[in-house]
C-alpha cells in the first residue's frame, strides 16, 4: 500500500492501490503534502484502465469541501474502482489553483471536476484545460464563462440569500431592525448571497438594516463584531442575517452573553454546517443546507457520462432524492441545480443523522 503524491508534473505512474485506506488515512497523507493533492484511486484488479478524474477545489480547510470529498468518496463508481479521483487543494488561492491546472494537464487526467477559488480567475486555467481536450464538469461554484463546461451541478447562491433573509424576516413578521454579516468581500458566494438578501430586503419596507459589515466568514470575527453592534444598538437589533453559518454561530455566542432570547430574535445562516444543525436543534438559529453530497456525486456521474458515453447510467441515488426538482434527464443538460434544503425543527434530526453516518 503506498500513496502516490502528485508533487511533480512528470508523466503519471500507474495509480496505486488505496482502496484499503480509510478516509482518515487518505486525508492525513494528502494534507501532509500541503495542497498538492492526493490519489484515492486504484487500478482495477483485472488491469483495466480506470477513469482518472482530477478535482481542483477551493480549499480543504472549509467544512463544506470536506463534506463534498466525503460525498465523492462514497460514490458507487469510486467504490467499485470504475473511476478514481484526485483532490487538488486550492488553499483558497487562485494562483495555487492555476498552478495545479498545469499539473492536471501534463498528467493527462481524463476529466476535471472544477470548484474554482475565484469565478473570474478560474477562467484562464479552465481554458487551457479545454484546449488540452480534457472535458470539464463544474460543481458548487459557477465559473464566469460557462461555455468551458460540459455541464454544471451546483446550487444557486442567490436563492440561498433569499432563503436566509426570508427565514429571519418572516419570523419577525416583516417588521423590525436587522444586521447583516457579510462574507469575504468580492468572493462570488458573498456577492450572490448579498444579491438574494437585498432582493428580499427591497420587498420588505418595514425592515430596517441597522448595520452591514463583513466578518470575513469567521466565527471569531463575527462574535466581536456582534458584541460591538449590541453595544452601539443595544436591544434595538431584532434579527441577524448572516452570509454563512460560521458567522451566525459567532453572533449567537455574542447574543447568548447578553441573555438574548432566540425565540424573539431570529438568527439565520447558510450552509448547514454540523454545528449549525445542532444550533437549529437548540432553537438558536435557522439555516439552509447546501447538499454537498448531491453536488459531489452528481458531478462524478456527469463526468463518467462524458467519458463512457450515452450507455452510462447514473450510479448515485441522489437523482431520486429530489423528485420533481432534480432529475438525470440522460445527463444531457448543461446545468443541474440541486435544491437548497431549509433546515427546520422537523427535519433537523434526520439531517444530523445523515451527517453523522457519513
Amino acid at each position, binding site marked *: 500500500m503506498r500513496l502516490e503524491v502528485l508533487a511533480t508534473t512528470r508523466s503519471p505512474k500507474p495509480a496505486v492501490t488505496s482502496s484499503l485506506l480509510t478516509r*482518515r488515512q487518505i*486525508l*492525513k497523507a494528502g*494534507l*501532509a503534502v*500541503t495542497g498538492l493533492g492526493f490519489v484515492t484511486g486504484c487500478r482495477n484488479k483485472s488491469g483495466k484502465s480506470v477513469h482518472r478524474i482530477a478535482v481542483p477545489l477551493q480549499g*480543504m*480547510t*472549509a*467544512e463544506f*469541501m*470536506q463534506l463534498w470529498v466525503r460525498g465523492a468518496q462514497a460514490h458507487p463508481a469510486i467504490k467499485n474502482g470504475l473511476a478514481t479521483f484526485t483532490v487538488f487543494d486550492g488553499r483558497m488561492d487562485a494562483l495555487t489553483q492555476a498552478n495545479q491546472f498545469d499539473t492536471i494537464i501534463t498528467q493527462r487526467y481524463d476529466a476535471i471536476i472544477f470548484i474554482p477559488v475565484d469565478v473570474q480567475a478560474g477562467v484562464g486555467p479552465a481554458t487551457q484545460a479545454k484546449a488540452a481536450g480534457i472535458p470539464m464538469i463544474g460543481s458548487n461554484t459557477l465559473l464566469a464563462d460557462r461555455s468551458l463546461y460540459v455541464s454544471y451541478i451546483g446550487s444557486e447562491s442567490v436563492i440561498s440569500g433569499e432563503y436566509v433573509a426570508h427565514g429571519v424576516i418572516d419570523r419577525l413578521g416583516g417588521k423590525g431592525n436587522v444586521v447583516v454579516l457579510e462574507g469575504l468581500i468580492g468572493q462570488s458566494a458573498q456577492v450572490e448571497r448579498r444579491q438574494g438578501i437585498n432582493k428580499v430586503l427591497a420587498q420588505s419596507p418595514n425592515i430596517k438594516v441597522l*448595520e452591514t*459589515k*463583513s466578518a470575513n466568514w*469567521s*466565527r*471569531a470575527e463575527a*462574535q*466581536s*463584531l456582534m*458584541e*460591538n*453592534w449590541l*453595544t*452601539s444598538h*443595544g436591544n434595538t437589533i431584532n434579527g441577524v442575517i448572516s452570509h454563512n453559518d*460560521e458567522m451566525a*454561530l*459567532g453572533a449567537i*455566542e455574542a447574543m447568548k*452573553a447578553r441573555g438574548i432570547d432566540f425565540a424573539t430574535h431570529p438568527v439565520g445562516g447558510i450552509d448547514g*454546517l*454540523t*454545528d449549525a444543525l*445542532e444550533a437549529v436543534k437548540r432553537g438558536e438559529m435557522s439555516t439552509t443546507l447546501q447538499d454537498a453530497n448531491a453536488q459531489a456525486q452528481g458531478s462524478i456521474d456527469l463526468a463518467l457520462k462524458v467519458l463512457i458515453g450515452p450507455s452510462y447510467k447514473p450510479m448515485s441515488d441522489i437523482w431520486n432524492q429530489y423528485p420533481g426538482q432534480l432529475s438525470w434527464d440522460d445527463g444531457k443538460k448543461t446545468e443541474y441545480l440541486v435544491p437548497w434544503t431549509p433546515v427546520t425543527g422537523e427535519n433537523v434530526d434526520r439531517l444530523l443523522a445523515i451527517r453523522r453516518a457519513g
Partner: protein
Amino acid sequence: MSTSTKQMGRAGARSRTLGSLGQLFARYGIVIALGLIVLALSVLSDNFLTSGNLTNVLRQVSINGILAVGMTFVILTGGIDLSIGSVLALTGMVGASLVVGSKPHSPILAILAALAVGVVAGACSGIFIAWVRLPAFVVTLGMLSAVRGLTLIYSQGMPISNLSSGFKFLGQGTFLGIPVSVVLFGATALAAWVVLAYTVYGRRVYAVGGNMRSAHTCGINVRGIIFSVYALMGLLSALAGVTLTARTTAALPQAGVAYELDAIAAVVIGGTSLTGGIGGIPLTVVGVLIIGLLNNGLDLLGISSYYQQVIKGLMIVAAVLIDKARHADAA
C-alpha cells in the same frame, strides 16, 4: 552613502535641538495617541464609555494581548515569530479534542496538554534559531506552514465543538466580575512586565537583543536565552489558543490565520524596536489597546473596516518613524 550618513547626522542634530519635548513625544507619543483615540471615541459615540463596552474591548483584545506579550520577548531579542497563529490553532484543537465526547477529560488536563504542545512547538523553533543559528524569520515561516498542516491532519479539517462547560469557562466565565480571558491577559502582562523589568532573566533578554556579542562576553548564555523566548512564545500561543477556543466555543482549523501580524503590529506600535533591546510590556499593552479600540470604535461608529486597515498600517509606520528618531537621538 555619505549623504545618508550626513542626513542621519542632521536628523540627530535636529531632534537634539527639539530637546526634551521631542524626547517626551518619542517616548510617550503612543500613550498620547491612545488618549486621543479614547477622547475621540467618547465624543463620537454615546456607547463607548460604558462598562459593558469597555469590558467587550478588553475581552476582544485579550487573545492578541497574550500573543503580543510573548512577541515582545521575542522581538526584544531581535527575533520574530511568524508561527504563532498556527500554534494557536493546533493547541486550541488539541485542547478541544480532550474535552468533547461522552467522557470528556478534565479541562485542566486539556489545558495543560495544549500548553505542553505549545511549548514543544516553540522549543522546536528555538532549537533551530538558537543552536542551528538559522534566521528566526525563516524557521518560524516554516513552522507557520508545518504547524498549520499538523492542525489540519489532527482535526481532519473539521471543527471540534460541543466542548465541556468547564473548558468553556476559560473563554466565557468571569472571575470577580471580570471575564476570565481578560484576567489571563492581565496576569500574563503583569507577570511579563515584572520579569522583564525586575529580574536577572529580564535584563539578560534585553542584553541579548541590545548587543549579542557583548552579552556573550559578559557570560550570558545567549543561546539559552534565545531558546527560552521561543518556548515562552509557544506557551503563550497555546494559552491564547485555548482561550480563543473557549471563547468561540469551538476549535476551528482555520483559527488564528494572520494573528502574528496583529501581535507584531501591537509590539511595534508600542515602540519596541525590531532590532531588539529596546521596548517593554507596558507600551505593548498600549499598542494592543490601540488596535482593539480602533476595531471597536469603527464598529460602533459604523465605519467600514477598510479604513481600519489603512489606519492600522499608518500607525505601524508612524511608530517605526518615532523609533528611528529615538535611535538618531541616542546616536
